[in-house]
């Protein structure tokens, strides 16, 4: 079987000036994942590695660069699934970690559960030795400005962002 990998960086609005940054981001991610596959690695590790690249790239809304909630901090969600045996792991509303996808994989591999949320996910991350990443270091200036703009406009964030990832 010839390996194949596809990645996406979200379906939200892309500012034309950042077009190239998005292209470079998804390119780096897909090549990282493909490298894993070319060396005989599993699809599971390939998708995890690809997503980690994008979580670490501030242009994308995941990990470092995530958008802020109404209170001004980051809550992140992630899921991973293995098509071989339908195993899956997920985390939701998790805070203060850099790579939620790594935690999702640990939920899949180290627990009998499918989804850990909020404080439970944070406690599990600590128990698994995942280093705490302060919220401020995950927040980008772009995310903060967008959050403040929404606050000032007193807009309805859900209605205003229909279709955005």
């Amino acid at each position, binding site marked *: *079987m*010839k*390996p*194949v*990998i*596809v*990645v*996406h*960086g*979200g*379906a*939200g*609005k*892309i500012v034309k000036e950042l*077009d190239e940054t*998005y*292209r470079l981001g998804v*390119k780096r*991610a*897909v*090549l990282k*994942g493909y490298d894993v*596959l070319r060396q005989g*690695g599993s*699809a599971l590790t*390939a*998708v995890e590695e690809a*997503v980690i690249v994008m979580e670490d790239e501030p242009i994308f809304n*995941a990990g470092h660069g*995530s*958008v*802020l*909630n*109404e209170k001004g901090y*980051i*809550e*992140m*969600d*992630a*899921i*991973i*699934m293995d*098509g*071989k045996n*339908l195993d899956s792991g*997920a985390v939701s*509303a998790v805070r203060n970690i850099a790579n*939620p996808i790594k935690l*999702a994989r640990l939920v899949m591999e180290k627990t009998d559960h499918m989804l850990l*949320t*909020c404080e439970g996910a944070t406690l599990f991350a600590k128990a698994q030795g995942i280093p705490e990443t302060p919220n401020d270091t995950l927040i980008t200036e772009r*995310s903060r400005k967008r959050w403040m703009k*929404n606050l000032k406009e007193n807009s309805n*964030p*859900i209605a205003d*962002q*229909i*279709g*955005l*990832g």
Partner: protein
Amino acid sequence: TVGAVAIDCEGNMACATSTGGLTNKMVGRVGDTACIGSGGYADNNVGAVSTTGHGESIMKVILARLILHYMEQGKSPEEAADAGLNYMKSRVEGTGGAIIVNSSGDWTAKFSTNQMSWAAVKDDQLHIGIYHGE
């Protein structure tokens, strides 16, 4: 939101999706990403899907699993993605996108929004796009 789907040399498939959610979202709001079948699904017998878009709409139609259901009925990844995204648009007025690979290694990146950044590699060939038609 970011995501990935892949098939490896042994024919095993996987998906992964990660997100910060909606800007200024309510504390505790969880969208589609963490929900199996909505933000992603992988089954070696059919394919792997990762989705992005308006989370509440994706959850209402369980988009990733819906797309795989269409593939089980014989549709190609591209046809299944179109069918799933069209269903979401017509039933709940939601837009978004999906990346898919099937057990034959066929893949697609489709979206009903104006843009979605994506990239793919098959046969050592790199493909990248953002806008419709790329």
